[in-house]
């Protein structure tokens, strides 16, 4: 058997089984995977380090925590509690994902030499070779994606994969909404360069 960790990319069938299994095992053992909430938790940790009044202990709240920020305070201070105790399952899970990406890349043989980790091939083919432009656009992309994900209450992991796995209406709604905007945007934004 070839070592799967050395391959640059898995065949779609192995990929589909592996992706399915990790979503299945996590919902069986702990809870469905979700990622985007942890951006809020990390923001909260930064914010708390400069503002000691952000998170307060509150006996009247169900979690025992409250926040001066309306979002951290929602659902009886659930996020406020996680900001105060970042060593919880969901936050550590996301930190471990960074290590997973690192390990996977480290073991990969025959890396894609064309890809410098800044400009994807399709970007070079349609937009050009400016790394500054790429950084500006990905930054804006990050702002829009996380703003949208928080408004929607989840992202590709939480809504699309975990949600649709459970046949949740919110999951289908999110998937349809994202494809309605992303497909035309990608087609327009990455249309062929005039040459």
């Amino acid at each position, binding site marked *: 058997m070839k070592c799967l960790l050395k391959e640059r990319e898995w065949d779609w069938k192995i990929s589909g089984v592996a992706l399915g299994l990790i979503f299945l095992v996590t919902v069986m053992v702990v809870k469905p995977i979700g990622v985007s909430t942890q951006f809020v938790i990390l923001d909260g940790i930064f914010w708390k380090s400069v503002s000691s009044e952000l998170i307060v202990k509150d006996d009247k709240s169900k979690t025992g925590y409250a926040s001066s920020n309306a979002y951290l305070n929602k659902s009886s201070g659930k996020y406020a509690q996680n900001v105060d105790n970042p060593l919880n399952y969901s936050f550590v899970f996301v930190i471990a994902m960074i290590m997973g990406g690192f390990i996977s890349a480290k073991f990969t043989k025959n890396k894609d030499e064309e890809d410098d980790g800044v400009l994807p091939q399709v970007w070079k083919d349609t937009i050009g070779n400016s790394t500054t432009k790429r950084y500006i656009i990905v930054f804006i992309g990050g702002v829009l994606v996380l703003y949208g994900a928080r*408004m929607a209450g989840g992202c590709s992991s939480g809504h699309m994969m975990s949600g649709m796995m459970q046949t949740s209406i919110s999951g289908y709604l999110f998937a349809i909404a994202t494809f309605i905007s992303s497909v035309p945007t990608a087609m327009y934004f990455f249309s062929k360069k005039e040459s």
Partner: protein
Amino acid sequence: MSVLLAIVFGLLFGVILHKVGAANPHRLINMLRLKDFHLMKVIFFGIGFSSLLLFVFSAAGVIEPNFSVKTAYIGVGIGGIIFGIGWAISGFCPGTSIVGAGAGRKDALVFVVGGLVGAFLYMLTYGSFKSTFLFDKILGGKVTLADTGVEKYHVIAEGISSSLVAGGIAIVMIVIAIILPKSE
């Protein structure tokens, strides 16, 4: 214990997202341009496969899954539309940007910084619209097509075997994954 599980599962999820090609923005952008269906096949197969086993195992009593259904409300659709625009221009979503950054992609790292700013802007603005129509529930909120067996979640296909409903949807997804061509 839960932290140890988080490390194991997080590591595995990170490796898997990287190996399936999801942390490669070239693949993702070309999926959204409807030019390359590798990731689409992976996603359809992954959801179908996990959903089928989840509902069959659960109905057979093999496991007791920790279902956690999110609320459906207007903002899921509007947020999804905003999400889709950022997703398309960058080629990343929250999970894949984190894995990409770990794998050494500089564009992914910039996306993560942008993401932290976006999440922060949401935290600052949430209070101004938290009582608006954006959070009006759809179909009762926490609702699924197949019966999860969890009392607090509404069910659309009520009274029909959950294995049949979820299994049927799952098989359609698996068939789509198989018949989609790899590329245009």
